[in-house]
C-alpha cells in the first residue's frame, strides 16, 4: 500500500524530533547523528518504535544529513548509512507489532549544509548528484516515500526534488523552513515556494522546523490558501531557548496538540513534529486529530511565475514583461553576446527592473553563438543579481531545457504553438520543470487570419496541454498581433481573438504589443494607444520596453482608470513629483570640462559631455587630451594618499561612461581604439570574494587594456587554457584568504609550465611582497593602481607608459 492511498482519507501522522532524543541518549554537539544508524542501531530502533507506538504513520529514517557531502569526512558510504537507517525503521515496524494500520518509512533528505552557487560554492548539479545517490539507495533499501525537509533555499530544494523524482518511483513530499515573517533564508515567500513545488510535481508540500506551532499557524494557513495539493505541517516544540548551554523547547504536548488540531481543521492533511517534539507530543496529537475528516482541497487556479525570492501572479492587475534582453535588431546587444559580455546584459536587466518590469524576457539566440550554454549562463547570472522572475524565450528545445532545469523558481516559458511538433517538444518540459507557458495561436497552416480560427488554435493548445497534465492556469495565450501598416484590420482581429480566448477558454493572455506599429513612423504613438485598447480587451501580460515613456503612461493611466490602482496611489507616486521635483543637489557641472567631471567622479555628466564633444572633436583627441590626463591625475593622487579608493573608483566609472560615448562615436565612423594588450583576471580556485579583482578590472579597462575576466573560483586549467588560446602575456590573480593562496601558487606553477612567457601579478587581502615572492609571482600589486602600472610596464611598448 502506498502512502498516497491513505492521503486525504484520514489525517496522516509524521513522527516527532529524532535529534532531541538522540541527544538525550548521548549524541554530542557536532557529532554526526547518521553514524548512530550503525554504531548505536538499537537506540535508533528504539526511538522509531516509540513513535510508531505513539501513533505515527510515517517515521523518518535517520538520514537527514546522510548525503555524500556531509558524510565526506566519515569512513561510511551513503549506501551503508542509508541502508542501515531504513533497516532500523523497518525493524521498528516489526518490533512494534502494529497490524491494524500500515506503517511507512520515509527516506529523510535534509540540506547538504553547503550554500549553492552563485552565493556559495556548491554547484546545482553536484547537489543534484548528492541527493540522487541518497534517493537511489533509499528506494533500494526499501523506503516507502521520500521526505525532503528543512530546506531554506529554493534552488537546493529544486535539485533535491528533481533527484528524487527522476531517479525513483517513490512519492515525494517536501517541506521548507519559513521564519516568522514567512520568508526562507534565501528570501522566498510562501507563494513562490508553493508555486515552484507544485510545478515540479511533488505529492505533498509544507513547512517544518524553525518555529513552534503558535508562530507556524499563520504561515500554515497561508500555505493552505495557496496550495492545491496536500499540506504537511511539522513544527518544533516552540522556539529554542538556551538553558545552561543546552537548547530546550517549551511547548508541552497538550498545547502542541491543541494548536495542531486547529491547523488540521484548517486543512492540513499531514501533521507531526520536528525539533523538541517527543513521542508524547505525537501521541496526544493523534488522540486529538485522529478522527478529524481531512478538509477537501480546492484547486486554486492561480497563474504564478516565480524567482527564488518573489512570486508574480498573473491576475486582474496587468503585468509588464521587459523585452530588452533580446538581440533582434540591436547591434550593441549582438556584440555583447559575441564577446560574452554578460555584464552588459545584466545592466539591461537592472534598467528594466528600475523602469517597472515585473518579469524579464530572456532571449539570447544568435546564429553564431552557442545558445544552449549562453542561455544557461545568462539566466544564472541574472538570477544572481535580479529577483524578478524570468521568461525563457527560445525556440531551441535543448536551450529551453537547460535554462528551465537550472532556473531557480517557476519560470515563464516563451513559447509553444499549435504545431504538433512544438507541443510534443515543449509540453513535457513544462510538465517536468513546472512553468507558465506562452501559447502562440499559429500552427502548421500558419497564423490564421480570423479571430475565430486563432481561438481554435488556442483551444487546441489548451486541450493538448491537458493531456500532458498541464492545467490551463499554467498557460497564457498569445493571439499574436500583426502590423496595421499592411492590414488595417489586424488590430481588431487581435483584440477580438483576445476577448474570445479569455471569455471562452478562461485563460490568461499575453501580447508582444509593439509589433502592431511595424513600418510606421513614431511607433510609440500607435503602440501606446493599442496597448490601452488591448488592456481594455482584457490583456493580462504585455511584452514591452519599460523604458518607453508612452507605454508606461498608458499602463499607469489604464490602471488608475480601470479601478486597478486604489486611490490612484501608484499613478500619483509615479507622476506627481515629475513637474515639481526640484533638481535635488544637482551639482553645478555646467562649467566643468570633461577632465574635471572625471576627476570629481560625475558619471552621467562625463558621459553627456563626452558625447557632446564627439560632435566637434576627433574621438582619439578626446581620449588623449581629456580622458587620459584626468585619469592620470586621479591615479597619482591615489598614490600620494590625497585621493581615496571610493574617489578613484568614482572617477573610473565616470571615465568609463565617457569612453562609452566616445566608443559610440568611433563605431559610427568605423574607427577602432587600439588596445594596449590582453590581461586575464581571475579570483583563484576556492576563493569566492571578487571585489578586489573587479576593482582592478575597471581600472585596467579605463587604461585601454583588453580584460578577460574569468570570474571567481576559477579552475587552474581555465586560466592556463585561456592564456594559451588568446596568447595572453599577463595574468592577474586575486586571493583573499590564506586557505586560497595555495591555489594561487598552483595556478602560477601551471602557467610557468604551459605558458612560460606569461607574467603573473598577484594581489588580495592576505598577500604581501614576501608571500608573493614565496609563491613565485612576478609582481605583487599592493593596490589597483599598482596593477595598472605593472600592466603598462609589461605590455606597452610606447614611451609614455615606460
Amino acid at each position, binding site marked *: 500500500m502506498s502512502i498516497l492511498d491513505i492521503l486525504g482519507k484520514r489525517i496522516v501522522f509524521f513522527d516527532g524530533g529524532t535529534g532531541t532524543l538522540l541527544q538525550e541518549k548521548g549524541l*554530542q*554537539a*557536532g*557529532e554526526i547523528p547518521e553514524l548512530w544508524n550503525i554504531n548505536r542501531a538499537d537506540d535508533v530502533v528504539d526511538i522509531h518504535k516509540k513513535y510508531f507506538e505513539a501513533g505515527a504513520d510515517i517515521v523518518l529514517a535517520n538520514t537527514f544529513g546522510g548525503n555524500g557531502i556531509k558524510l565526506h569526512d566519515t569512513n561510511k558510504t551513503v549506501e551503508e548509512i542509508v541502508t542501515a537507517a531504513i533497516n532500523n525503521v523497518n525493524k521498528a515496524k516489526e518490533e512494534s507489532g502494529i497490524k491494524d494500520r500500515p506503517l511507512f518509512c520515509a527516506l529523510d533528505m*535534509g*540540506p547538504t*549544509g*553547503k*550554500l549553492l552557487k*552563485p*552565493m*556559495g*560554492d556548491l554547484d546545482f548539479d553536484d547537489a543534484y548528484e548528492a541527493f540522487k545517490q541518497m534517493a537511489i539507495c533509499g528506494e533500494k533499501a526499501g523506503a516507502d516515500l521520500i521526505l525532503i525537509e*528543512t530546506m*531554506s533555499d529554493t534552488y537546493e530544494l529544486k535539485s533535491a526534488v528533481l533527484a528524487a523524482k527522476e531517479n525513483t518511483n517513490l512519492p515525494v513530499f517536501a517541506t521548507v*523552513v519559513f521564519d516568522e515573517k514567512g*520568508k526562507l*533564508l*534565501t*528570501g522566498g515567500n510562501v507563494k513562490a515556494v508553493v508555486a515552484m513545488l507544485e510545478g515540479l510535481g511533488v505529492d505533498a508540500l509544507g513547512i517544518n*522546523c524553525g518555529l513552534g506551532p503558535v508562530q507556524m499557524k499563520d504561515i500554515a494557513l497561508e500555505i493552505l490558501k495557496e496550495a492545491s495539493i496536500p499540506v504537511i505541517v511539522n513544527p518544533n516544540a516552540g522556539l529554542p531557548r*538556551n538553558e*545552561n*548551554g543546552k*537548547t530546550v523547547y517549551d511547548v508541552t504536548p497538550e498545547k502542541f496538540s491543541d494548536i495542531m488540531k486547529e491547523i488540521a481543521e484548517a486543512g492540513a492533511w499531514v501533521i507531526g513534529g520536528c525539533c523538541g517534539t517527543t513521542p508524547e507530543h505525537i501521541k496526544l496529537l493523534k488522540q486529538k486529530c485522529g478522527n478529524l475528516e481531512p478538509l477537501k482541497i480546492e484547486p486554486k487556479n492561480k497563474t504564478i511565475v516565480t524567482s527564488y525570492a518573489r512570486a508574480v501572479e498573473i491576475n486582474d492587475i496587468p503585468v509588464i514583461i521587459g523585452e530588452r534582453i533580446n538581440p533582434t535588431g540591436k547591434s550593441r546587444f549582438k556584440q555583447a553576446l559575441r564577446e560574452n559580455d554578460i*555584464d552588459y546584459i*545584466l*545592466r539591461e536587466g*537592472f534598467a528594466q527592473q528600475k523602469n517597472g518590469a515585473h518579469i524579464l524576457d530572456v532571449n539570447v539566440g544568435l546564429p553564431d553563438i552557442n545558445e544552449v550554454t549562453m542561455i544557461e549562463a545568462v539566466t544564472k547570472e541574472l538570477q*544572481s*543579481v*535580479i529577483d524578478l522572475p524570468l521568461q525563457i524565450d527560445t525556440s531551441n528545445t535543448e536551450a529551453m531545457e537547460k535554462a528551465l532545469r537550472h532556473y531557480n523558481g517557476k519560470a515563464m516559458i516563451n513559447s509553444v504553438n499549435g504545431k504538433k511538433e512544438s507541443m510534443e517538444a515543449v509540453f513535457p518540459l513544462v510538465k517536468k520543470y513546472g512553468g507558465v507557458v506562452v501559447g502562440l495561436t499559429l500552427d502548421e497552416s500558419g497564423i490564421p487570419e480570423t479571430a475565430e480560427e486563432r481561438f481554435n488554435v488556442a483551444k487546441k493548445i489548451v486541450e493538448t496541454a491537458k493531456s500532458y497534465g498541464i492545467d490551463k492556469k499554467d498557460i497564457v495565450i498569445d493571439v499574436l498581433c500583426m502590423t496595421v501598416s499592411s492590414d488595417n484590420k489586424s488590430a481588431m482581429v487581435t483584440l477580438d481573438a483576445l476577448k474570445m480566448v479569455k471569455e471562452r477558454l478562461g485563460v490568461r493572455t499575453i501580447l508582444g504589443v509593439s509589433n502592431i506599429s511595424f513600418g510606421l513612423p513614431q511607433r510609440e504613438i500607435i503602440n501606446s494607444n493599442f496597448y490601452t485598447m488591448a488592456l481594455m480587451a482584457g490583456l493580462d501580460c504585455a511584452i514591452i520596453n519599460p523604458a518607453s515613456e508612452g507605454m508606461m503612461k498608458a499602463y499607469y493611466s489604464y490602471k488608475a482608470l480601470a479601478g486597478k490602482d486604489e486611490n490612484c496611489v501608484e499613478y500619483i507616486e509615479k507622476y506627481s513629483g515629475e513637474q515639481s521635483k526640484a533638481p535635488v*543637489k544637482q551639482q553645478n557641472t555646467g562649467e566643468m570640462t570633461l577632465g574635471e567631471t572625471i576627476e*570629481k*567622479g560625475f*558619471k552621467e555628466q562625463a558621459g553627456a559631455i563626452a558625447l557632446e564633444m564627439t560632435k566637434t572633436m576627433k574621438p582619439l583627441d578626446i581620449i588623449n587630451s581629456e580622458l587620459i590626463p584626468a585619469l592620470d591625475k586621479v591615479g597619482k593622487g591615489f598614490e600620494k594618499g590625497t585621493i*581615496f*579608493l*571610493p*574617489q578613484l*573608483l*568614482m572617477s*573610473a*566609472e565616470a571615465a568609463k561612461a565617457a569612453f562609452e560615448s566616445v566608443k559610440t562615436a568611433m563605431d559610427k565612423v568605423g574607427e577602432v581604439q587600439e588596445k594596449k594588450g590582453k590581461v586575464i583576471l581571475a579570483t583563484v580556485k*576556492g*576563493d*569566492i*570574494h*571578487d*571585489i578586489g579583482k*573587479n*576593482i582592478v578590472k*575597471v581600472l585596467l579597462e579605463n587604461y585601454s587594456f583588453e580584460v578577460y575576466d574569468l570570474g571567481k573560483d576559477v579552475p587552474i586549467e581555465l586560466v592556463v587554457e585561456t592564456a594559451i588560446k588568446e596568447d595572453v602575456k599577463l595574468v592577474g590573480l586575486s586571493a*583573499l*584568504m*590564506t*586557505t*586560497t593562496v595555495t*591555489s594561487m601558487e598552483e595556478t602560477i606553477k601551471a602557467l610557468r609550465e604551459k605558458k612560460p612567457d606569461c607574467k603573473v601579478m598577484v594581489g588580495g587581502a592576505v598577500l604581501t611582497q614576501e608571500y608573493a615572492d614565496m609563491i613565485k609571482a612576478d609582481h605583487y600589486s599592493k593596490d589597483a593602481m599598482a596593477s595598472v602600472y605593472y600592466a603598462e610596464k609589461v605590455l606597452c611598448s610606447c614611451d609614455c607608459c615606460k
Partner: protein
Amino acid sequence: MDIKRSEVYRYLGYGRNKPDEKVYEAVEECIDLVVKNSDMKSIYRIFDLNVEGSTIIIDNSFKTESKNLSKNLTGCEKIVLFGATLGTGVDMLIKKYSKLDMSYAVIIQAAAATVIEEYCDICQKEIENKLAAENKFIRPRFSPGYGDFSINHQKEIINMLDCPRKIGLMLTESLMLVPSKSVTAVMGISSEKQDCHIKGCEECEKLDCKYRRS
C-alpha cells in the same frame, strides 16, 4: 543600530582623513542599502571548557592548540561559541553594484563589514547581560584566524552550533564563510571580571596594517 561612520571610512582606507561631500553622501546611501538588505541572524551556545597550557578543549570533543587564544581564555571555566550573519541579501547587493558602479560596491562592502561587527557587539552585549545575572563575565570575542587560532576551526564552530540549519551560515570547501558578511567567534566565561573591551584589531600582531585601528 549605531553604525560608526569612522569604521566605514577606516575600511575604505581613509585613516584619519575626512571624505568629500560626494563620498560622504554615497556612504550614507550605502549604509541605508546595507541595513535594508540585511537579514541579521545569530546563534550561540555555552560549552564546557578546559585549558591546559596552550591546549584548549571545548565540550570534550573540540581540541586545539593556540597560545593567543589560551591567553585570552585564562581563568575561564566555560566558553560561548557564537555565529552571526547578515544573510545573502548583502552579498547580492555587492554583486549587483559590482556590475553597476564599483565605487558603490566598495562602499557597500565597507558598510557591511561595519554593520556585521556592530551587530556582533550588540549580540555580545546581550550575552554579557544575561551572564551578569549569574555573576559571570565574558572575554573579548576571538575568531578563527586571529593570531595562531587556526582558521580551520570555523568548521567545528559551525558544526557544533548547527549554523547552516539555524542561521543559514555555511562554509565553502576552502573554509570561507557564506554569506560573506558573517562572523564566527568564541568568548570565554569566567567568574572574575576582566577588561572586556579590547577587540581583535588591537590584539593583532600585524602592526603595519593600513586598516589598523589607532
